């Protein structure tokens, strides 16, 4: 069993602040969390937020429909900039997804007990982010209805995908990632679904939660296998999550375009992903703990830790940018040199410097405990980082392409309103799913909170 009481003890001792408010027992954590789901009355803010996000989903529908009818020409893409917002957004969303898996898998392996209260919705966030990401590779195609050609199947043409293409790797990586995340998330949910089944008052809820819980009854043997499965999945998900963003970075690193063709991409994409992901977790958890009064479960300790992770990854990413510039100059390759100079001084220079400001300068405030202790400040920084990471992808995609080898084919890329609608639309879809999730599923893992309570009590016993 991963989080043995003793480990939790150790973790708790080193911990500066508590990771669970005082005075909670099995019953109270159970009731507090399941109450959120089973509450009769839906909070007003939820209804408002839900409707807003729903409206944005409709915007997405409109944009995509028009896209399929008219063609990708409605976007700003052209030659030389064949990829624009679509791929930028794809990488951005995928990156965001990574934090969830990281928290649920890697931190589990590293026995970080503080993950307990945030991993459930972090994982959910992963799923939602990946589903937003998944839309773009599909719709950015000139003929999306033929997307299935990217997968191998015996067809009447005897044709196969080209397995040398990073896009095919992408297709496999992203779909695998989505599937595994979903499974991981679901088996984590089973015991809590059982809890809801047993707490639910009205029959439909009982039925639905009951079916989903698959008749979980908390048998010791079941728990044993459940724990093993979770650990195995964590072990699998960890290399998977690293591979996914590595492969996403291959989309660029495998191309010969100056600014893409760099060995540094995989590590710095992964770091960037975690960076973006944690920023998004913060962005979500801060309002959620406020609105659902979960300050005792998602404590300042959590926010503080996430702030630290943010800072750490910010430094890695910053190092990435530095090395990119350095190797460009050091390489002596005129195209690379030009590329980096063009980023810094060319038509898109503002984007580049704004990105530096967002991703490297701003997070430096997190060195100060005071800042990390201010919820508002953390939230602001997280938002800035979200923006910064989007800009990073913009810079990578656009500034590399718009001026490559032959000056004769240089061009400038301007997004159209449809680029923006589609992007905003996916943000809407993301929020839409988040709202559904926090209303109808336990947004904190109940059974793991119970284990946490158990460990707290042992701590008392020891003291």
């Amino acid at each position: 069993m991963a989080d043995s009481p003793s480990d939790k003890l150790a973790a708790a001792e080193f911990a500066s602040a508590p990771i669970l408010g005082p005075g909670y027992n099995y019953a109270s954590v159970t009731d507090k969390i399941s109450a959120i789901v089973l509450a009769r009355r839906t909070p007003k803010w939820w209804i408002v937020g839900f409707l807003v996000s729903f409206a944005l989903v409709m915007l997405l529908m409109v944009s995509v429909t028009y896209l399929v009818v008219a063609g990708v020409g409605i976007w700003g893409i052209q030659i030389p900039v064949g990829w624009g917002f679509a791929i930028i957004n794809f990488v951005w969303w995928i990156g965001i997804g990574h934090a969830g898996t990281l928290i649920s898998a890697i931190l589990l392996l590293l026995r970080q007990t503080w993950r307990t209260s945030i991993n459930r919705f972090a994982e959910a966030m992963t799923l939602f982010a990946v589903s937003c990401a998944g839309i773009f590779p599909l719709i950015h195609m000139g003929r999306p209805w033929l997307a299935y050609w990217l997968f191998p199947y015996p067809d009447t043409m005897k044709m196969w995908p080209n397995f040398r293409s990073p896009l095919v790797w992408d297709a496999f990586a992203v779909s695998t990632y989505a599937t595994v995340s979903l499974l991981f998330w679901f088996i984590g949910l089973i015991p809590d679904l059982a809890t809801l089944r047993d707490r639910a008052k009205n029959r439909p809820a009982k039925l639905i939660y009951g079916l989903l819980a698959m008749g979980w009854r908390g048998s010791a043997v079941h728990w044993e296998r459940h724990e093993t499965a979770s650990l195995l999945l964590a072990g699998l998900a960890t290399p998977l999550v690293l591979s996914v963003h590595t492969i996403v970075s291959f989309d660029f690193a495998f191309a010969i375009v100056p600014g893409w063709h760099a060995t540094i991409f995989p590590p710095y994409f992964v770091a960037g992903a975690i960076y973006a992901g944690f920023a998004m977790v913060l962005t979500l958890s801060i309002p959620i703990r406020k609105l659902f009064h979960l300050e005792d479960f998602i404590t300042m300790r959590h926010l503080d830790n996430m702030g630290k992770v943010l800072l750490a990854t910010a430094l890695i990413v910053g190092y990435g940018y530095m090395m990119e510039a350095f190797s460009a100059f050091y390489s002596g390759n005129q195209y690379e040199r030009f590329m980096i100079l063009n980023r810094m001084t060319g038509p898109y220079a503002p984007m580049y410097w704004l990105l530096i400001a967002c991703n490297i300068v701003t997070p430096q405030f997190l060195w100060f405990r005071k800042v990390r202790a201010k919820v508002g400040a953390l939230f602001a920084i997280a938002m800035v980082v979200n923006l910064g990471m989007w800009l990073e992808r913009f810079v990578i995609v656009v500034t590399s392409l718009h001026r490559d080898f032959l000056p004769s084919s240089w061009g400038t890329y301007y997004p159209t309103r449809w680029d923006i609608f589609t992007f905003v639309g996916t943000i809407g879809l993301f929020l839409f799913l988040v709202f559904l999730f926090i209303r109808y599923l336990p947004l904190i893992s109940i059974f793991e909170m119970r284990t946490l309570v158990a460990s707290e009590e042992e701590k008392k016993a020891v003291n």
Partner: protein
Amino acid sequence: MAQIFHRSTNTISRVSIYGAVILIAVLGYAVDVVNQTSYVTEVHNARPQPVLFSHKHHVGELGLDCRYCHSSVEDSSSAGMPPTQTCMACHSQIWTSAAILEPVRASYRDSTPISWTRVNAVPDFVYFNHSIHVAKGVGCTTCHGPIAEMNITWREESLYMRWCLECHNAPEKYLRPRSEVFNAFYKPPSDQEALGKRLMAEYKVQKLTTCTTCHR
């Protein structure tokens, strides 16, 4: 606590889960099967024609050579459809009053072409050339089937790319001597493989599977 579900739910739920998996597999296979059916491929589906022309009679019984009507097959991409003139060459002499031939006579009389219904067609993005296939020893009936037995002409093969590649990957299985190309009654010999290999060498037949062979 009371039971929420009846005993049977256990079985039902398990069956439905594993059933779903199997169902998906079956559906996938079904699509492939349907694509092979004559409903999709039109294979063996005799199509109505303005004139009840019988290859069985003209080729099978009278033994007309393919080239008598499809005259450009040896030097053009298209095998060519016979002008009314060609029909009238004989039918101005025989069956001159047969009702069945009225459309032909009418066409000749007031110079309005007969519009036949296409039986063998490939998509617009496929560029097929009859002359080179004929020149390399691919017999008419290899693709067009037992034409000498067709009263109303039907399509013998799916004309799917997969089908084309069967021969382009292994011509030796299908080649025949040039002298036999237009023989509608040709039966491949028992040692087809050996013969095919010999002819491949003799006719310098290549295994062309590169895209631009057919797609431009």
